């Protein structure tokens, strides 16, 4: 007990005693756990601990309270429930347990005392003993700990101060120190570098990855070019880009100068009906167009559809990154509330305040734009090029959304995902579309890509987030909530992704471009060599840095989440039938298909504000003049001016997304885009994400057991249990204890619950460590069965996933 600590207690400098303790514990926890059952990461030290603490559970966790021990290490705030199962010392380390928060995710620490609340900063002093500790996190969680009378006051005060002192203030450089704290130990580095990358996922890094994607989409007429292999053409583009076969690399090289930052039109994705989706930056207008250049530019832009090209201008109708940031800031403030300032918005003003953030407007705009593009692509043979001044923000959102809407592969959960983005990886944008990371998708056959790779600027500059990526996630969530059964992934997956973007640990989210990512991993294999005369601005000022720890990709979920949590990333029930694989990517049987009526090659239309036009100066190299837009007037230029006759045809395609006529189609076609309803009442708020704070929870808190399950989970679990019993009772095995494999084999057969190709290979890393557990549990059969629902063991990884959300709760 600290004498006098009640009245004034200054944060103590980390005195020798603490250091000593750290050392001691560091030693003790080298590979193991703290005496109080905290399983430490290699090199992690416990700075402070408080016993008999209760954690408030959210609605999703079942509400009520959980008591246990609270720890603060130099990497996270960890909470270990009293009755938590003993950690398995041999298991791979998990960065964060179910109840833990990384210090870097904490935004604010507030304590609640007998009659007051106070924001605790590293320098503040506490004049009272807190009864409640509230951590406001960047990812919009609000975590609330209650100190019982049994918690020694000294522990309460010390842990509060320790957390306040060690959580990451927003300073440059703090990201790196956090990374080092988490992953910098020798053991951790070694562990990470030994982790195998998921071979099934398309990382969109190498030329082969891109070729795979091109092939998957059946994009004939396109090839992977390595013209930017050394980032000489564009520093923000990925090393490999997909361009028309007709254009040679040498011709290509001359085109870069015509686009902002060298971001020439690149292929993202091909709709199975044959349209191609491209993205590009704005044109450099002040450049002289030689005849050859013009030919090449047209070839690149038109790709393999010489007939028609629609340029979709993204700049005007979509929010700017600054708008998004502002909206997100308001949304956060609104949803988080803050008991320390008591400026919470009154309930009666909730709706209008929510509207005032414009966040939902922005999601609607993005979805609307993506729906338009999806309808165009569905409509026929053409090239749709997304154009944005820098081609790094909204074009990522829109191109990725289009793929989520149109390509079932993008709605599966791959194990990895994307990050590898593709091509562009670059800039602050995330990958380009097309990504797939088939990976362990649960149906290999379908091999879908997963969510498109998206990465946004968000993470890029970690401290100045422009939450473009979060906007994208919200858009995907809107789609998901309107068509849950068309997704293999669940909102839990989206939530995990959302939270991970706030943790500066994953390579996927930390670099702005493939080039930067490569630089980070140089030590693992040089992938580019600086070119003469070209200086890397980052390097110049960063000086000699300690070598960064290797950062894992975010898709390595088992680093972050237990099997149980991961199982919830996938829908428990089977996917809708997988689309037949494409032969040549040409499914063009659609009657509405748009055909240019006059066969004039080279018509270019601009889609802006939902209207098509053909301004003569759309392509700077055509039409030469000051660009008076006279639609329908034949203008002599180096090609015929686009005729506007085609516009009505295009507009018909767009009408589909305005919905009055769309829905009657049978949904038999898996490539029919998921067009979301966009009316005001249909745009939902992602409550599971934005309203996780305990503050609004409810008027009365009742102690409830933490095991509520989704009824579907229960049912899936039960079917599973029955299958296990069947297996158990089957005559062959009844006589003697049968090997575990058999059980799985049996369980697997003839069930529609679990697709038979369950990606055994993909789950390999986990399996060996889990196997012993299973072997050692011959116990009562029932028990073993029950168990298997909880902790997917061994063979169970697949099953766990299939059962998906089974596990949110511990039956018992």
């Amino acid at each position, binding site marked *: 007990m600290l004498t006098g600590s009640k009245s004034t207690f200054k944060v103590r400098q980390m005195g020798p005693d603490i250091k000593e303790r750290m050392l001691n514990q560091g030693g003790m926890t080298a590979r193991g756990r703290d005496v109080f059952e905290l399983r430490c990461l290699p090199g992690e030290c416990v700075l402070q601990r408080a016993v008999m603490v209760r954690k408030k559970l959210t609605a999703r966790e079942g509400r009520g309270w959980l008591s246990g021990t609270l720890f603060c290490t130099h990497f996270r705030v960890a909470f270990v429930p009293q009755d938590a199962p003993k950690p398995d010392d041999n298991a791979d380390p998990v960065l964060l347990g179910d109840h833990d928060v990384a210090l870097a995710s904490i935004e604010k620490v507030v304590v609640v005392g007998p009659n007051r609340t106070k924001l605790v900063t590293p320098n503040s002093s506490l004049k009272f003993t807190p009864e409640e500790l509230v951590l406001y996190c960047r990812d919009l969680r609000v975590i609330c700990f209650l100190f019982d009378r049994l918690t020694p006051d000294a522990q309460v005060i010390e842990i509060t101060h320790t957390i306040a002192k060690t959580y990451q203030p927003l300073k440059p450089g703090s990201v790196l120190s956090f990374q080092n704290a988490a992953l910098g130990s020798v053991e951790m580095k070694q562990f990470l570098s030994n982790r195998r990358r998921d071979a099934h996922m398309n990382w969109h890094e190498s030329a082969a990855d891109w070729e795979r994607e091109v092939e998957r989409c059946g994009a004939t007429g396109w090839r992977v070019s390595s013209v930017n292999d050394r980032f000489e053409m564009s520093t923000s583009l990925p090393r490999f880009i997909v361009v028309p076969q007709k254009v040679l690399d040498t011709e290509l090289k001359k085109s870069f100068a015509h686009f902002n930052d060298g971001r020439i039109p690149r292929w993202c994705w091909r709709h199975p009906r044959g349209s191609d989706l491209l993205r590009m930056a704005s044109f450099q207008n002040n450049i002289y167009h030689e005849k050859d250049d013009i030919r090449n530019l047209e070839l690149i832009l038109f790709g393999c559809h010489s007939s028609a090209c629609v340029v979709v201008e993204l700049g005007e109708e979509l929010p700017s990154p600054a708008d998004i940031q502002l909206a997100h800031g308001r949304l956060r403030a609104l949803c988080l509330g803050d008991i320390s300032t008591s400026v919470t918005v009154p309930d009666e003003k909730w709706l209008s305040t929510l509207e005032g953030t414009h966040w939902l407007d922005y999601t609607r705009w993005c979805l609307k734009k993506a729906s338009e593009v999806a309808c165009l692509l569905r409509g026929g043979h053409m090239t749709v090029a997304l154009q944005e001044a820098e081609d790094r923000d909204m074009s990522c959102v829109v191109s990725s959304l289009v793929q989520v809407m149109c390509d079932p592969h993008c709605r599966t959960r791959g194990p990895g995902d994307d990050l590898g983005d593709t091509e562009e990886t670059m800039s602050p944008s995330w990958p380009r579309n097309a990504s797939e990371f088939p990976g362990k998708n649960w149906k290999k056959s379908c091999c879908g890509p997963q969510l498109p790779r998206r990465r946004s600027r968000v993470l890029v500059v970690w401290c100045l987030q422009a939450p473009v990526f979060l906007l994208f996630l919200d858009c995907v969530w809107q789609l998901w909530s309107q068509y849950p059964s068309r997704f293999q992934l669940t909102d839990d997956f989206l939530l995990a992704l959302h939270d991970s973007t706030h943790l500066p640990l994953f390579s996927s989210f930390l670099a702005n471009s493939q080039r930067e990512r490569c630089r980070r991993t140089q030590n693992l294999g040089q992938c580019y060599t600086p070119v003469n005369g070209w200086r890397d601005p980052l390097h110049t000022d960063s000086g000699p840095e300690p070598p960064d720890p290797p950062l894992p990709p975010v898709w390595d979920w088992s680093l972050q989440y237990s099997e149980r949590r991961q199982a919830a990333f996938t829908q428990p029930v089977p996917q809708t039938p997988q689309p037949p694989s494409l032969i040549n990517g040409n499914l063009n049987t659609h009657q509405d298909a748009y055909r240019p009526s006059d066969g004039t090659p080279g018509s270019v239309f601009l889609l802006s504000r939902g209207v098509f036009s053909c301004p003569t100066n759309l392509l700077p190299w055509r039409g030469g003049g000051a660009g008076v837009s006279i639609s329908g007037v034949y203008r002599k230029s180096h090609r015929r001016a686009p005729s506007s006759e085609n516009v009505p045809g295009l507009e018909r395609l767009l009408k589909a997304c305005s919905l009055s006529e769309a829905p009657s189609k049978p949904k038999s076609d898996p490539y029919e885009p998921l067009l979301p309803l966009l*009316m005001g009442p249909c745009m939902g708020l992602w409550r599971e994400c934005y309203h996780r704070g305990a503050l609004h929870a409810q008027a*009365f808190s009742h102690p409830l057991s933490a095991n*509520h399950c989704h009824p579907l989970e229960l049912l899936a679990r039960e079917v599973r249990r029955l299958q296990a*019993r069947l297996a158990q009772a089957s005559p062959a095995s009844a006589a003697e204890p049968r090997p575990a494999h058999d059980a799985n084999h049996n369980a697997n057969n003839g069930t529609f619950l679990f697709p038979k190709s369950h990606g055994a290979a993909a789950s390999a890393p986990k399996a060996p460590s889990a196997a012993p557990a299973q072997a050692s549990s011959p116990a009562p059969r029932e028990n073993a069965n029950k168990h298997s629902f909880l902790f997917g063991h061994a063979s169970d990884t697949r099953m766990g996933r299939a059962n998906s959300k089974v596990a949110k709760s511990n039956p018992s």
Partner: protein
Amino acid sequence: MRDDYGCRNQCTSTRASQCLSSAMSQYFHSIIESSENSSFLYPLHSEVKRGLSFWLNVLTQDVTYFCPFTGALRGIVTVSNYRLFFKCMDREPSFVLDLPLGVVSRVEKIGGASSRGDVSYGLVCKDMRNLRFAHKQMDDTLKKSIFEVLMKFAFPVSTGLQIFAFEYGQVFPENGWKVYDAVSEYKRQGIPNESWRITKVNDHYELCDTYPSTLAVPVNIPDEELKRVAAFRAKGRIPVLSWIHPESQATVTRCSQPMVGVNGKRSKEDEKYLQAIMDANAQSHKLFIFDARPSVNAAANKMKGGGYESEDAYQNAELVFLDIHNIHVMRESLRKLKDIVYPNIEDSHWLSNLESTHWLEHIKLILAGALRIADKVESGKTSVVVHCSDGWDRTAQLTSLAMLMLDGYFRTIRGFQVLLEKEWLSFGHRFQLRIGHGDKNHTDADRSPVFIQFVDCVWQLTRQFPAAFEFNEFFLVTILDHLYSCLFGTFLCNSEQQRLKERTVSLWSYINSQLEEFTNPLYVNFSNHVLFPVVSLRHLELWVGYYIRWNPRMRPQVREPVHQRHKELLAKRAELQKRVDELQREVTNRSASSSSERAGSPTRSITPVQTFV
């Protein structure tokens, strides 16, 4: 095994709720256009098959329907004594409108005869839509105009005709009037017991003509005293039992306001009566009186002889005002809501427009009130008395919602029917006045969407607890549709006394004859769970599936198969269970014949695995 699912456990899952709503919405979107098999027509088809005829076509004519969403449609309208049916064959699929005339609130001529001789008129409907038709001026003056026909058959009460329900003679396999029997419902709750008795004092509706004939009152208050208590309560609506907690014996009782008046009148009998209600519950020495009104309104009622219980007069009682507004405020709120959802929705200001209707705020207050009542009874083990002014609007909302939270029985399909029969119909919610069946006086100040609000609150509960209710969204929408349709006798009249059950068909006859339509596949029978919903506005939503269902843009574009998939899983489970049982039997037989010590083990697990659905 049951323990696996927890026992007093709250089930919240928004994921499921999403699935649920999208799965359900397919039903009622089909009503407007699409097939003729929609539920409204169900009686018609069966009736045709039997060769009966309750319908009498009175008019068929070519008209133009001005659809606010798709523009003018030419087609044929048919008006019968029950409904208006419009069909446009020009488009594919054909466009159909089917509207029970009971839904019509007002028929108005628009703009008189125009220069081209068109006659145009609008129908304002009670179910959140307006329709506009036009037709050529007819030369044949002998033929009745649609306007006259509609005025006659849509408002039978005003024109001296009979409401259609009295002509409707459909026979259903089940008689819905038998769903509710007061005595057996009280018996289910354990009444009579040592503290509560059932009285027949109101057998001929002499004590109170708006109350049911069967009442449950404290044992130690004789019938004579009840009459004196009735004198002190508005309209004679004395405190009577609605629900009793099976364990703690805490009760929910309902009544009307005390006739305190400006002078602060007191009634010894009434005070003794409330004391008796409190004493009937040994767990608590307190009684909570929930007055649904805002305190200002309650005080204003003193001018009219009413008022509220003073805490001086009623010892150990605590009075709480729940701030729920009166029927006029609610009517206005719903009118505003209709303005913003029909026909056009302004996307960019949707949320602030919604806020300005205050509809969700009213819903929240009602739910919050019911939650407080449920919490007092469940957690505080304290008895509560609920009243507003007359005890038939807000009181009915509060007691029935609290009972829905407290008692899992009311969350089943039949239980919910019992709840409506009991708390709403038998206790005299004035449906005739509030809805104005067949009455052309559309400005009547007694009309108010009290019952719709209640159903909306129930829907909010189903969103928060998607597995806790046996019925689905379609069930709730169907109830609201037939609230207006005048096809069934259930929601006609103002009280049990007036209701002529024998002469009409009950809505429950229809519903219980096709239960699968109304069953929630996600239902898990957590019968002893108490639901405590989150009532913050942040967690309430507008019921788009009801209020905005006429907008074709709301139609789900892809039929969500989650619902379907759940059914498949159920079937799969049944099949597996069967196989398990068979194998188990086989194993048992075999091991019995071979080894005796193994024989015992399989039997233990024969207990059925499933514990729900």
